[in-house]
C-alpha cells in the first residue's frame, strides 16, 4: 500500500479551480518531487494535504487512513509534517526550543507538573533534550543549540525547519522549496541532508522545488503540475524528457 494516496483532489476559490483533479500515489520511502511553473498550485496542494485548506472534492489517504478534511493539528498527529516556502520558525525561541516545540506531542507531561517541577517534568525534559540534540546533530546544528532561531544564517534556518518537522515523528515529510535562496554549495549540502533523512529515518518525502539540479539529483519520481492539473507523472528521467513538460515548464 502506498504511503500517500491522493485521488481527484480539487479546490475551488470562487471562480478559480486552483487544484483540479490532482492525484498521486507515493510509495513508502520514496523521494518524490512536485514541480511546475509559478502559480501552478503546488503550494496549494501542500496546504490541502496539511489541512490548511479543506478540499472541495477528493480523498487523501495517509498510510491507509482517510485524513481528508481533518484539521492541521490532527493531520500532523496522523503523520504529516511540513516546512514552508517562506521560512516559519519560532524566531524568538532558541534553536533547541524550536525542536522541542516539535516534540510537543511526543513527550507529554501536564502543565501542573511543569509548574510544580514534578519528577515527570524532569524525566520528559531530559528525554526531550536528548532527542532534540540528536536531531540537531543530524542537521549539523548542535553547535548552535542555544542561539535564537532568527539569528541563524539562512541555510541553517531551512535545516532547522526540517529538524523541527522531523521532531514530530512524521510518516511523510513535505518540503516546500527547501533550496530557495540557497547558493550552490548550500544546495549540494541540503541534497545530502535530504538523502540522509530519507535513508536514516526511512522517511517518505514529497518536495516542491524549482532548482532542477536538486530535482534531477535526488527525486526518484515526479509530478508536473500546470494550471492546477497534473501534466505528467512518472520516473524523473522520463518526465524531464517529456516534450509537454519541456514546453510548459523547462523551456527548449
Amino acid at each position, binding site marked *: 500500500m502506498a504511503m500517500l494516496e491522493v485521488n481527484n483532489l480539487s479546490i475551488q476559490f470562487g471562480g478559480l479551480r486552483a487544484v483540479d483533479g490532482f492525484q498521486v500515489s507515493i510509495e513508502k520511502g520514496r523521494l518524490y518531487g512536485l514541480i511546475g511553473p509559478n502559480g501552478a498550485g503546488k503550494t496549494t496542494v501542500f496546504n490541502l494535504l*496539511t489541512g*490548511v485548506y479543506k478540499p472541495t472534492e477528493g480523498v487523501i489517504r495517509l498510510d491507509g487512513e482517510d485524513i481528508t478534511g481533518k*484539521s*492541521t*493539528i490532527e493531520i*500532523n*498527529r496522523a503523520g504529516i*509534517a*511540513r516546512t*514552508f516556502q517562506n521560512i*516559519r*520558525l*519560532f*524566531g*524568538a*525561541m*532558541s534553536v*533547541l*526550543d524550536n525542536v*522541542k*516545540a*516539535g516534540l*510537543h*506531542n511526543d*513527550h*507529554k*507531561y501536564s*502543565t501542573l507538573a*511543569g*509548574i*510544580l*517541577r514534578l519528577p515527570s*517534568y524532569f524525566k*520528559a*525534559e531530559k528525554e*526531550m*533534550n536528548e532527542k532534540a*540534540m540528536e536531531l540537531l546533530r543530524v542537521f549539523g546544528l*548542535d*553547535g548552535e*543549540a*542555544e542561539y535564537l532561531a532568527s539569528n541563524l544564517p539562512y541555510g541553517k534556518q531551512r535545516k532547522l525547519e526540517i529538524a*523541527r*518537522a522531523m*521532531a*514530530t515523528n512524521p510518516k511523510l515529510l513535505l518540503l516546500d522549496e527547501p533550496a530557495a535562496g540557497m547558493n550552490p554549495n548550500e544546495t549540494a549540502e541540503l541534497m545530502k541532508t535530504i538523502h540522509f533523512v530519507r535513508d536514516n529515518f526511512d522517511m517518505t518525502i514529497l518536495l516542491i522545488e524549482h532548482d532542477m539540479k536538486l530535482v534531477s539529483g535526488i527525486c526518484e519520481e515526479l509530478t508536473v503540475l500546470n494550471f492546477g492539473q497534473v501534466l505528467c507523472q512518472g520516473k524523473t528521467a522520463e518526465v524531464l524528457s517529456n516534450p509537454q513538460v519541456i514546453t510548459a515548464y523547462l523551456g527548449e
Partner: protein
Amino acid sequence: MADMKKSMSKTSKNNYITYAMVIAIFIVVQALSATGNLSRLLTGLLVPLCVYTIAAVSLNLVVGFSGELSLGHAGFMCVGAYSSALFSSVFADTLPSVPRLILAILIGAAVAAVFGILIGIPVLRLRGDYLAIVTLAFGEIIKNLINVLYVGVDENGLHVAVSSAGLNLAAGGKQIMKGALGISGTATLYKDIKDYFFLIGVILILITLFIVQNLVNSRSGRAITSTRDNRIAAESVGISVTKYKLMAFTISAALAGVAGVLYAHNLSMLKVSTFDYNLSILVLVYVVLGGIGNLRGSIIATIILYALPELLRGFSTYRMLIYAVVLIAMMLFNWAPAARNFRSRILERLRGNRKKKEAA
C-alpha cells in the same frame, strides 16, 4: 551534552536571580522601616506596590509570552477583589483571619480564572487591535456591572439586587456591597495581621514568579511562546493555538485576581472606580517599559515607576514632567537599538574581565 546542561542551568540561574532580587528588596525595605528610615507615606505604598508587581508579572504572561495585547487586566483584578472581599465579609465571624485570607486569595484567583475562560473563549478568536479593543470593553463592562450591584446577607442567606431597597434584607441583615460605594471595612476584618500584609504581598509575588517562570520554561510554556512567534508553524507541529492562548490568558487572569485580592484586603474602602482602563494601561506601561517577555524587568519597572511620582512630590508642579522624562528614558534604554548594543557591549566586557580573572 555540555551545552545543554549549560543552557538549562542558565535559565534556572536567571530564575533564581529574580527571586533573590525580590527577597533582597524585601529585606532592605524591612531594615529601613525597622530603623525608622521609611516615611509613613512610603510604608503605605508597599502593599499597593506588591499589587502592581503581581499584576505586571501576570500581564507579561499574556502580552510578552502569548503575544496578545490585553487591555482588560483591571477587569480581572476587579473580579478578584470583589469576590474575595465579599467572601471575607460574609465569613468575618466564622473563620479566623489567616485561613480566611488564604481562602479569600484562592477564591479571588478562581473567580478571576473562570472569568478569564469565559472572556477568553470568544475574545481569543480575535487578533491584534481587535483583541485589545474587546478586552478593554470587557474591563469596562465588569466595572459597570459591579457598580450597580448590591449584595447583602441575612439569616436566609445571600441577597443580590441592583438597588439598596431591592435587597429585602431581614432584620439584623448586613449590606456588604453597596453599588458605587463598594465594599467597606474589609481591611478592618484583618486588623490582627495588618502588619504582615507587606510580607504576604512579597510571598504572593514570589508565588506568582514561581508559577509564571516555571510555566514559561516548560512544555506548555514553549507551546505558548510558539503560538506567539508563528501561529501557522505552531499548528503545523501539532500545537493547538487556541488551547495555549486560552491557558496563558486564564492563568494570567487568575494571578490578576490575586493582585485584586491583595488590593481589596489592604483597603478600608473598596471602590470599583479604581479598576478603570487607566489601571490596565498603567500595568501595561510597566510591562512594556520593563521589557516584553522579561519578568524581572516588569518588577523593576513597576518599582521605579510606581515609587517615582510619590518620591517626586517635593517637585510639586514638575512632578509629571519628570515622570514623563523617566518614561521616555526607560523606553530608550530598553528598546533603542543603540542602547541595546551599548548594554550588550558592557555586559560582554564585564564577562570578559571575569573570565580573565578566572584564568589568571
